[in-house]
């Protein structure tokens, strides 16, 4: 268990992103606190990926702001992201993790040991010396998780971590997410899998056309949602 971090809560305040006159995020106001994973749901193009990328600092806001731990962000927050389609470096599995550790300024002497721990956590110990790009889709996804965790993040963003994975791989990713979350890492992830949202969510954020429709605790979201969009979503109707 880690001590409550000064990086949380993560707050979006009227955060908007407009690119070439297209509004991708529309005045999002959202507070992400520590605890069980925050799950982002919503149709394609609703802004889930952009919200995660903005929180990661990869896309600038057009308006509004993002704050970490109620402070002005002169110290960068400890955050990491796993993209929907992660890019493996052209190196072995363990070298991919060691690279992330090196970038995170972990002393050389400790890297091998840390990397071995991380690979064990994601169940890839036996593939340590395998070229990362020769691993299967599910294995690459787990390696990407290990690499993201190498940064020892307070907040871990996951963009559809199990999209296009089979049930077995999906389960192993979900198990890792649960383990990581139980250790006190705040997970914020997007998914199209409503069953996965039910299994993992502490709270649910529903986005639609760049706007935040609803943000409620999971128990409430899946039983008595506030909005008709959320009702449509959980009953399996198509929200378009």
């Amino acid at each position, binding site marked *: 268990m880690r001590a409550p971090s000064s990086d949380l809560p993560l707050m979006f305040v009227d955060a908007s992103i407009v690119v070439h006159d297209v509004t991708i995020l529309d005045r999002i106001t959202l507070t992400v606190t520590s605890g069980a994973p925050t799950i982002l749901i919503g149709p394609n193009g609703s802004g889930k990926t952009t919200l995660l990328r903005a929180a*990661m600092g*990869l896309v600038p806001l057009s308006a509004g702001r993002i704050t970490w731990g109620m402070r002005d962000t002169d110290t*960068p927050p400890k955050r*990491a*992201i796993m*993209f929907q389609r*992660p*890019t*493996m*470096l*052209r*190196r*072995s599995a363990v070298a991919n993790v060691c*690279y*992330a550790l090196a*970038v*995170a300024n972990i002393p050389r002497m400790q890297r091998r040991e840390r990397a071995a721990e991380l690979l064990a956590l994601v169940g890839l110990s036996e593939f340590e010396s395998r*070229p*990362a*790009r*020769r691993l299967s889709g599910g294995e690459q996804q787990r390696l990407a998780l290990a690499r993201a965790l190498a*940064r020892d993040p307070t907040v871990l963003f996951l963009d559809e971590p199990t999209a296009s994975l089979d049930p077995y791989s999906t389960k192993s990713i979900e198990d890792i997410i649960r383990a990581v979350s139980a250790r006190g890492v705040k997970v914020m992830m997007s998914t199209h899998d409503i069953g996965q949202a039910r299994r993992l969510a502490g709270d649910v954020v529903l986005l639609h056309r760049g706007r935040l429709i609803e943000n409620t605790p999971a128990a409430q979201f899946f039983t008595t949602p506030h909005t008709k969009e959320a009702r449509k979503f959980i009953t399996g109707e198509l929200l378009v």
Partner: protein
Amino acid sequence: MSNHMTALQLVLTGDPGLFAIVQLSLLVSLSAVLCAALVGVPFGALLALMRFPGREAIIIILNALMGLPPVVAGLAIFLLLSRSGPLGSWGILFTPQAMVIAQTVLVAPIIAALTRQTIEDLWVEYRDELAAMDVGPVRRVVTLIWDARFSLVTALLAGFGRAAAEVGAIIIVGGNIEGFTRTMTTAIALETSKGDLALAVGLGLVLIAIVVVINALAWGMRHAGQRYAG
């Protein structure tokens, strides 16, 4: 037919004159590729990653320089190194060093241009991950060069091919002095004009064989490496 027989005999008997010529050719061309790589790879990588006004003009010039006529490069280096030239005091005109310089000038644009393209393609793929990991600019360049290493072998091979094949530059700055600056290509040109076709054909065969062997080695290295690193 008799020409071919004599050529083959020269090769098979390991004629010492022939051996010296082959050795110098390899030494000059490989040194030039090494020098050109030390300049061209980092330059190409920086050009791939940096955005500044005039960048596109540099890329166009670089691509155009890939077709720089060897005699023109040779002439330029000749003027620089000749007694009255700005670098005349070095006194290296008509030496192997001058030949290395001339071939470096020919090869560096090829390596830089191909590196630029390779690194730029890889950067598109790696940009998000490296940005998410907060990888600084210097480490970015090093990472991309390292991860592109097997593709960059092709750039080095292209450079070596050019160096090994050209005659125009080294004949001007080297002078084709027997036992000192005579290489395979300059010797072939000379022997052909003298009418000694046997030696010319023998050298031609050796030259082709060497280029094939070096390409085969690089191919093997690249594939062994890719199997290891993905």
